[in-house]
């Protein structure tokens, strides 16, 4: 079964870059511009990985992670938080909400691909 990845990121350009990168690996990629917009994907459809930004309007990354972890069907899926944020408190908040990994932006494309492939193995 093809893996389906959800990218949540308010900045269109970086969303497209991530999307292109992942599509080159033959994944199905879905997009949402913020946490609230992402919620519509959690309707029972298949999601194998979420890659989300931290700072976004409406619903930020940590809030999104908390929501996902409260959903029985999505509780155990991997979540990457992709952010330029260096604020330790925010990083800790994301960790407490149980993210799988914190990836610093800007990221190295090869390294990023490797992480995604590894977690979806």
């Amino acid at each position, binding site marked *: *079964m*093809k893996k389906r990845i959800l990218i949540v990121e308010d900045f269109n350009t970086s969303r497209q870059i991530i999307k292109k990168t992942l599509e080159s690996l033959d994944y*199905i990629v879905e997009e949402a511009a913020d946490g609230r917009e992402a919620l519509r994907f959690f*309707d*029972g*459809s*298949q999601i194998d*990985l979420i890659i989300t930004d931290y700072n976004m309007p409406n619903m930020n990354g940590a809030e999104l992670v908390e929501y996902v*972890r409260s959903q029985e*069907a999505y*509780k*155990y*899926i*991997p*979540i990457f938080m992709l952010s330029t944020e260096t604020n330790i408190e925010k990083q800790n908040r994301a960790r407490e909400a*149980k*993210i*799988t*990994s914190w990836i610093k932006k800007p990221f190295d494309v090869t390294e990023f691909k490797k*992480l995604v492939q*590894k*977690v979806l*193995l």
Partner: protein
Amino acid sequence: MKDFMTSFVEEASALLSHLEIDLLTLEKEPENKEVLNNIFRVMHTLKGTAGMCGFINIQDLAHEFEGIFDQIREGKLVINSEIIDFTLKGKDVILAILKNENSENFNNALIESLHEMSQVGSLHEMNETSDKPLKELTGLSVFAIFFSPDKAIFERGLDPDKTVAELKDSGKSNIILHENKQSWKVQKTQKICLTTWEIYLSSTALLNEIEENFLFYEPDEYRIYDISSGAEQVPPELLARLQKLYNKPDVKEHLRECLIPLNVEASKAITQLPENTDEKLPEGFPSNTSTEGEMTINVSSVKLDELMNLVSELVTQTAILEARATYLKDPGLNNAAENLEKLTKRFRTNALDLRLVPVGALLSRFKRQVRDLSKKLNKHVNFFIEGQDIEIDKTILKSVENPLVHIIRNSIDHGIEFPEERIQVGKKKDGLLKISAFNAGVIVIIQVQDDGRGIDLEKVREAAIKKGYIQQDQAIMDNDLINLILEPGFTTSDNISLVSGRGVGMDVVRKELNAVGGTIEIFTEKNLGTTITLKLPTTLTIIDTLMIEVNQSIVLIPMLDIEFCYKEKSKEILKRDNKYIQYKNKPIPFVSLREKFRYPANDANDIMVIILNKFDKSYAIIADRIIGEYQAVIKPLGDLFNSQPYFSGGSIMVDGKLALILDTSFLFTQITKN
């Protein structure tokens, strides 16, 4: 097979009593070539037949002895009373196994013998390997890895099994699971991790490559030591731990493999350390648990069956109780019913767990056999195992052991060519032998493939005519012809080799498989190789399925077949005449389950499209709704429903209701036919 075994036991017992006399003669007359040859022949014969009758232990023992007496024949080893001593002891062990005496005693005796043998055996091992470059012996690194993920690791989207599996793939490993309170499997279904893994891995990988496997873990969740880098690099408590393991009979054989590549100082340091009596993991290693050695007991399968029946009953009764409690609206009763339901669920998972074992447990045992055999026959074989995690009922797995032993032997002995021969016909020098296991609907398929010369159909034909199976000029399909080799007493090999037996072959294999309800299929192509497919239906299998709903009935689809699913907001496609939809820019056929099962159309707007992939072709089915993933325990449908082809099995769900498992292959053939 039973008769065959009895005759083997008789024959072998007779050989063994002669062996004793010969051994004692040899001790007095070490120069007596005739007696020496006799002993060698006995071991050789035992080895050849024991494995085929399922006495793998005897086969291994006889193999070792054969090697040693071969050395003596060639003058590389000198007979002394020590060799005579443990050969006699080995003879006693073999006799004990044959008579099926108290297993504990013979097990201990066996280990003792093997241990003694390996000491002497190391003599000829040395001779054999001394001309190899040293790098080949020590080029591997050995890692000790302690891995104890956080209790809530699943909520971080990670699965420790995957991490461990990746490590496993990077080399040879010994993995000791320190479970805590419950079995790891139960922990996994409850999404709580209390387990610690202790892993010894010999690999060509570098330390940082091994570390990469732990990319998503926190530094306190794992510790990796390169124990091949020299004793001084290894913390003393780890050395003590290794020493402890090394002396434990049950793990020694595994660990030995890992410890061999240790460089001399390190292994010396390990064996010279005083024995540590502490059973626990040494201080300073991450651990979730106080370590308890895993203990196994044998339980009769009748008892297990009874337990399974009781569990099914319990599930149904609990569901009834819950419904009654909801109806009565008594909070106390409700509470009790809910708790009972939770307990029942756990009980059910546990009970199911008892019968299932991963096929890897058996398949990985063939590694040694393949290695030894190919070495002995001077063939180069690359051996691969796929699908080790596929789980199957233990009884069934056990019954395929002998057939697989035989099939593998045939592949190496008759299928795969000698290196020179392979190069001549333009193949790679190393032959390929692959065993793969996978789930297909309600059956487990185990396939043995080789890229050897294939079965010579002309020879099969000749032999078939000679033995009167077919007439001289009778036309027969290749497929029917090849299946003749499954007939009793049929053999084509010109000179019957000891390795593959004496014409007792594929017919026994087929009989054994049929006994557990399995089937065997042979596919062969000249010069390209042979594929033998074993199909094993199981009365009790768990597969991952997707639970869907069609007109309020539950249908399960094997997850393995699913490629993709999506929601379609419009029902326009149902009205199409051509019954095709677009998927990945290609038209693929679809079928609406409502239509197929003649249910009335419903008025909901949404429909679910599920894309299935069967035999590398896609097709779609349309259902009302997707409910979610479901681990289904498959039961056969029974005689009443055998005539319908759409469902291959059923599953009783936790609420006592029945769900049917869709036969995706049948649907596929039907769709493509139209």
